[in-house]
């Protein structure tokens, strides 16, 4: 295993350690979704998924 892989692994491990407390704090402070909230987020994200599929089809 070369030094690039080891450095990348250490970097990603540090990112997880640094992000974990922040993620915990955000999870406990995240407000409850109201009816229709998820729909308003999922529809544009589905459009993004469709665009990616289209771009990958063009790239082939």
């Amino acid at each position: 295993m070369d030094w690039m892989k080891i450095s990348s692994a250490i970097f990603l491990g540090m990112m997880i350690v640094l992000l974990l407390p922040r993620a915990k704090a955000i999870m406990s402070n995240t407000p409850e979704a109201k009816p229709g909230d998820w729909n308003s987020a999922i529809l544009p994200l589905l459009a993004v998924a469709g665009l990616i599929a289209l771009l990958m089809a063009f790239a082939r």
Partner: protein
Amino acid sequence: MATPYVLSRSGQSVLATNKLIRNTYTLLSMTLLFSALMAGLSMAVRVGPGAYLACTIGAFALIWLVLPRTANSASGIGVVFAITGLLGFSLGPILTMFLKMPGGAQTIMMALGGTGVIFLGLSGYALTTKRDFSFMGGFLFVGMLVVLGASLLNIFFAMPAASLAISAAVVMLMSGFILFDTGRIVNGGETNYVLATVSLYMSIFNIFISLLNLLGAARDE
């Protein structure tokens, strides 16, 4: 006679939000241009693949250690340019590798165009609907931790299918972050344009890298 005061406060809040949006998007466009210049420079001087990792680590060190202390001062703008410059410079070896492949320039242009369409579409959607997407916060941060964990495992197992799945997940997560961050800007959850710029820039950067990976793999097929 509380109404005029309430109206005045509301008017001030709208003005402050509009100013925040204008400052954020101005700084974001400037940093994207600067990033592109730095990417061009790193391609011209032909830096090695190690530069990608070194610049990325340097940029994240600035984000974690320096940005929180300088975000409320004028020096915060310099730190944003340092972060985006380093990340732009880190793109050089990747872009050089793609340009050596057949049809690599088209793949880069498609990834760039796709990133632009995703960012403008989602940001425009969040700005016009003015919806609050803060309910997505927990989901997005947990998703990011899962993706980081999967990326860490994939360094050791090196599975191409897993790499593609991670890239697809990153594009979807970062798209969610664009909605989340823009919603926070519009609804007063974020009042600092330096921090707002860095958040949006990181989403755009990650979408571009992941789209390059996905489109490169599709072309290889």
